[in-house]
């Protein structure tokens, strides 16, 4: 049962990683504008791509 000390340590580290990822996302301003990226993702990268897609 002594292994439980190790397991709790590992699980806390993993959960801490998720927390760090969350803090990184907040500091990266990902929650400040949640609408514009939904438009941006639909825009193709270059003019050429756009025409290719249109002819399909």
């Amino acid at each position, binding site marked *: *049962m002594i292994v*439980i*000390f190790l397991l*709790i340590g590992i*699980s*806390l580290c993993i*959960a*801490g990683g*998720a*927390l760090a990822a*969350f*803090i990184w996302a*907040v*500091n990266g*301003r990902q*929650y*400040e*504008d949640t*609408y*514009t990226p939904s*438009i*941006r993702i*639909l*825009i193709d990268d270059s*003019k050429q791509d*756009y*025409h290719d897609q*249109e002819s399909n």
Partner: protein
Amino acid sequence: MSITPDNMHAKCFHCGDPCPQPAVRFEDHDFCCEGCKAVYQILQASDLGAYYDMLDAPAGRGSNRTAEQYAYLDEPEVFRQLIDFQDEHIAKISFELPQIHCSACLWLLERLPAIHAGIIHSQVDFLQKTCFLTFSPAQIKLSELVHLLAKIGYEPNLRLQNLQKKQVSGFDRGFYTRLGVAGFCFGNMMLLALPEYLSPGSLEPAFRQFFAYVNLLLALPVLLYSSSVFFGPAWRGLRQGMFSIDVPVSLGILVLFGWSSWEILSQSGPGYLDSLAGLVFFLLLGKWFQHKTYHRLHFDHDYGAFFPLSATLLEGGRERSVAISALQAGDRLLLRHAELLPADAVLQSPEAQIDYSFVTGESEPVHKQAGEQLYAGGRLMGAAVEVALTRAVSQSYLTRLWQQSVFKEQRRPGLHTLIDKMSKHFTLVIISIALLAGGWWAWHAGPAQAIRIMAAVLIIACPCGLALTMPITLGNALRLLAKRQFYFRDIHALAGVAGITHIVWDKTGTLTSKERVQTAGTELQAEAPRLIASLAHQSAHPVSRQLEQLLGQHDYLEVEDFCEIPGQGIAGRVGGHQLRIGTRQFSLGGEAGAPEGATCFSIDGRPGGYLLSEERLRPGIQALLQRLARRYDLLLLSGDHQHKGEALRQALPAATHIMMEQSPHDKLARIQALQAAGHKVMMIGDGLNDAGALKQSDVGVAISESAEGFSPACDAILHARALPGLDRYLQYARRAMQLVRTGIGISLLYNLLGIALAVQGLLSPVVVAILMPLSSVSVVLFGMGSTYYAARKLGPPVRESG
């Protein structure tokens, strides 16, 4: 290239407007003007032509302003105040670009670095219509940057408020990390506390101690980092002698932590740390819910949001754009059509039409002659004029209106809310109960047990449910009202509605909708609309503009012998006919049956019909006022002339008090008088001049044609379309406050139950772990559910267009 149905006019490839004959042609495309062609050329040169494939609505026309007109932006003082950030190499700035309307705009603006190498990065916030730019001042000057944006059809909305101190958002990123940390610690502590709850006492001591110490470790960030949201305001409040809800919450948190760490370190028990983390997490969620409001609505507009950033200064016969903060009394300005006068001035040109609707709400333009005083905030209609400033911007009439005491003091109507009032009594009662119970146990079982009991009482009495009730209930009510286009600034503003006894209306624009133009009289002959439009096109008078718009003609005939007689009308020869447009006297000689105030036109001396502009009550207003009059005292304060009052008196319920010719100061004084008599006043208005009254009133509601449009500082914005339902919304707001009281009752019941257990010494960590979340969750469920249920009567939510 697209062709209009009549095959006469090509549409401009860039902006979609009809092209004149002949059109400007370039690379197989027609353009309506050189400006549009220039935008096309810029985009083609940077390989950004795909813009036109993506557009779903016509593009904005390029501005024809020159780079020199933006030169004032490069002055160090202006530059420093405008930019958000600067180091040796780069500068960051954000512009409001009202022209942003579709994904093509986003695409183009985020590809600005392809147009100019000096622009390093560009990012658009679509909902806020804002573009965040990083640029290198060494390669592109700020004036050049703005000029480039203007050239491609996105002229930034540069207003005086850009110069004023930028407001730091009260709800910052730090809050989200606090919430995240509390959630993380709460989840893990629950897991570690669970074995103790499931098999109390049978856990191996090594495990129990290990779990307890890990929990203590996890509780530290919750106490030291996440809880600071409560400690700070509580301490500041206490120092000012105010007892907000944060005080008992902070007390609860501190006692929970102190007692739990004592238990753990002395190995006398497992502590209540998981409950502590849960409490903080729930409370932060409540705060988040309360603040998650409509950040793209502006509740804090003052004149700075309306005033331009620059004006055209005349210096020795030359024109130069300068920042208006640099203007001084005595400066001579050139004011063009539709430009706003930034400071009080004297008219130098022979005459001018000034539209003060923006300041006073009065819709008719005022005719001014040379030497007359003009006030800041007036908008010039018609030909350009020259003015000499009599005061600097900060000394002008409109500006001083904002410097009155009403705006100085940070009046927070919600600070003494129901909850804050309760929390003082609440804390005192809890501390007395704790002391009494402690005294009794000290007498019977010694001091150690007494301290245990006192700690238990303070822990279980932590007003978690109490603190959550108001944000959750009112926060949800606020959201449901916003879906019906009634937007409140925050829950405190919503709470203020409950006590309202008087409703004060501002007439102009609030009760009436914009003027409508109607043609009446003789039928216009086939040629007539075109003749009239051609003549009206020559004049910049607002009535001429209205007329032209109404007739909807685009191809104009040549006008000969045009003359304009101020206050009378216009006349000229068009297509072989003699036309006169103006007052009845002017155009017809006063004999035809057109009503007073109508704009008449005559062709070759024969009556050609007339236009009548009328102000109408907004639809549903009469019925609304009748319903409101049953509950509230209604007052109408209008800046309009006395003679308009009679018509209103007949249209409105008899109980409405109508007072005409009220200046902004009169309105303010009137509201102050009502408040002094102990009444709670709601002011409903729209003009900037109402700003003082809106701010002074207990709840100031601005009526707006579009929620994102400009409105003065207020507590709530009501969409003009939603106005007829106002009585139902107010009733709902009152109902929401009743629900808050019920929610408070529920949470107090839990507290009572918990205290009853605590004073008897029956409070175990398991009971705390169940009772505390249960009280929070039931309060949240009640608040959400009941507000949704009560909203049935509100009618369906309105889908926002666009």
